[in-house]
């Protein structure tokens, strides 16, 4: 299998360079098409995310292809080769297969086990397939990688547990409220971390998002960003009473939400109130957490879970790697048995052509046979050929590597002059049609 992978990733290149070589912000399909045309490769896929730009190509002449792909990368992005060449990695055959499987499994991600990558691999393949840039090799390779990605996710806990504070905060919200639809969120303080959490909640489908900040302009800016409403600072405490989820991240030096505040607004409500205090020093009095309906989490609590999730993920890495290894072996074995198919086909064709031409030659003598005897003769010769062909077929499919396979194919070609038979196979098939032979 002539497979080549050239690319940069967060492991080999700094973000400034990855940005320059990124395909994901533009039209990936067009890039794939251009690569296929320029580098004259029959099969190619471009996988580009913020952590990697990888070009998968399948071709016979890998040395030439490698140069062409590197040229394409530089020309397409207008980046001089000497700038990115030291950061490139190139993998062939088995190593390239293993790499793609690891990527799909989330093992190569910056945050190991993150769930988006599998979808990104699928998108990369589909945009190449839509432009007719994929063939049998990349199609089977990517198909298998989707399977490996799914298998690792279902058989290991690699993707379990949130690995950032804001994701963990949202995960807990889901354990309290189940669906976030229609939940009202109050964001107090419009800093980076509260913005990020509000964005995650918005993506999770929450209803109204209210934003209160001492600086009205900040509140307004964040409101526009997450499609929410800014409320005046003085309305913050009353707004607390109508919210289901509260995120606080102000720079205040003393708690701005006290137990008395929360008690006053929760007395009239029955549903839970989930408060996420991301500020240091804390914005919410710790004793607020003692109120029956209130679930209070501060940044340390969340960070503790994130650490725990990260360490339990790393425990799963070994398991995931074992699955990837197993799948690589399986995939390569399958590819090898597939690449034996042309030789097997030619051999079968040859055997059946001999049988058919012999039957044709004896046509005059066989004319005297009754239809039953004739049928018997055909069945007998067919079975004999199948028996003779069975063992060579099995052996050819099981050959350990490509070189051995090439040697065997060459030997078969010589012993049976298979290539010559290929050329006049139309005669043989004509003869077979007359004798009603099976193939």
């Amino acid at each position, binding site marked *: 299998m002539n497979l080549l992978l050239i690319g940069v990733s967060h492991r080999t290149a700094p973000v400034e360079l990855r940005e320059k070589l990124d395909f994901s912000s533009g039209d990936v399909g067009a890039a794939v098409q251009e690569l296929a045309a320029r580098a004259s490769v029959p099969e190619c896929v471009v996988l580009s995310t913020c952590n990697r730009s990888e070009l998968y190509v399948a071709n016979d002449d890998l040395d030439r292809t490698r140069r062409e792909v590197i040229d394409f990368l530089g020309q397409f992005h207008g980046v001089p080769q000497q700038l990115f060449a030291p950061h490139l990695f190139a993998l062939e055959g088995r190593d390239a297969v293993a790499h793609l499987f690891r990527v799909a499994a989330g093992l190569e991600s910056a945050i190991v086990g993150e769930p988006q990558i599998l979808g990104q691999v699928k998108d990369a393949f589909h945009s190449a397939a839509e432009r007719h840039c994929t063939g049998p090799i990349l199609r089977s390779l990517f198909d298998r990688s989707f399977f490996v990605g799914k298998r690792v996710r279902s058989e290991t806990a690699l993707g*379990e547990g949130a690995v950032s504070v804001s994701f963990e905060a949202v995960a*807990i919200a*889901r*354990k*309290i*409220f*189940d*669906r976030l639809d229609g939940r009202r969120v109050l964001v107090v303080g419009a800093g980076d971390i509260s913005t990020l959490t509000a964005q995650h909640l918005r993506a999770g489908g929450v209803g109204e998002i209210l934003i209160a900040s001492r600086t009205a302009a900040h509140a307004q800016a964040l409101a526009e960003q997450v499609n929410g409403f800014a409320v005046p600072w003085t309305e913050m405490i009353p707004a607390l009473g109508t919210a289901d989820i509260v995120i606080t991240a102000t720079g205040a030096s003393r708690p701005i939400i006290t137990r008395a505040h929360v008690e006053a607004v929760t007395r009239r*409500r*029955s*549903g*839970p109130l989930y408060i996420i205090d991301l500020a240091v020093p804390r914005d919410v009095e710790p004793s607020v*957490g003692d109120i*029956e*309906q209130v*679930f209070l*989490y501060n940044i340390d*609590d969340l960070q503790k*879970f994130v650490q725990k999730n990260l360490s339990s993920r790393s425990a799963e890495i070994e398991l995931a790697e074992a699955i990837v290894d197993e799948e690589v072996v399986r995939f390569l074995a399958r590819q090898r048995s597939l690449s034996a198919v042309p030789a097997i086909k030619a051999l079968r064709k040859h055997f059946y052509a001999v049988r058919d031409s012999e039957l044709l030659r004896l046509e005059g003598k066989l004319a005297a046979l009754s239809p039953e005897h004739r049928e018997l003769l055909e069945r007998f010769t067919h079975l004999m050929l199948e028996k003779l062909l069975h063992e060579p077929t099995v052996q050819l499919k099981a050959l350990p590597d490509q070189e051995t396979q090439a040697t065997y194919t060459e030997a078969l070609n010589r012993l049976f002059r298979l290539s010559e038979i290929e050329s006049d196979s139309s005669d043989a098939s004509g003869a077979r049609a007359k004798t009603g032979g099976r193939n």
Partner: protein
Amino acid sequence: MNFLLLALYAGAAITYGLHFARREPSAGRTATTLLMVAVLVHTFVIATQTMEAGQFPSTNTAAVSAFVWVLALSYLYVEVTTNERAMGVFILAIVFGLQLMTALLPDMETSHNQVLHSAWFGVHVASLLFAYASFGLAGVLGLIYVLQFKEIKKKQLGYFYTRLPSLQTLDAMNSRAVAIGWTLLTIGVVVGVVWAGQAREEFVDNKNLAAMSLGDPKVFISVVTWAVYSFALLSRRMMGWTGRRAALLSASGFGIVLLNFLAVSYLLKTSHSF
């Protein structure tokens, strides 16, 4: 047949446990299949007993076994409609425990009491059995709500946090189970009272019927049960007692139901010991 049934419930309980502990989808499917088979066999057992006796078996043991059947059936209904198996291990623990009890405790002779040959008796028993099954589900939902609540409140996101549904889901399911249970309990009690009144005129010298009053332990605890669940319903709507309070109420409510159903029936002689 009874042994097979017990073994099937035990098998289902163990696989629900495995599914809960390991979170393997295949174990979950096996558990559901086992429980379905168990319920089918149980249906067959009860049908056979009913045909042999010529009436629905009314001994204590038969009633407990019928409750097990109804509880398993109701749970299966909930599982199939919500695709939520987290309750399974808890329900199956109750199911297996009660079924084991029916196998161990001595049974009375089925009495052929003419009083019980009435369609009203059927409605009375069936609606109470389904009411108790609903309370059983609500009780388990309440219990696991408290487990989940504790972990989230104390910020110790651990074993139950990863396995149990959200608080909101548990609370909503609990509320529905209590409402259904309360309705059936009300129907069961009203039918019982009306029917007992009629039967008293028909069977003047029946001691059981004569003894039926609020002073009777079984009747008294039934009324207490009704009061507890009426309070659960009202407090949720009027006083905002949702979440943990509702969960605790329904868990303790089911405790009273079990007390009535088991302790009172087996240990005390009541007007309901026909």
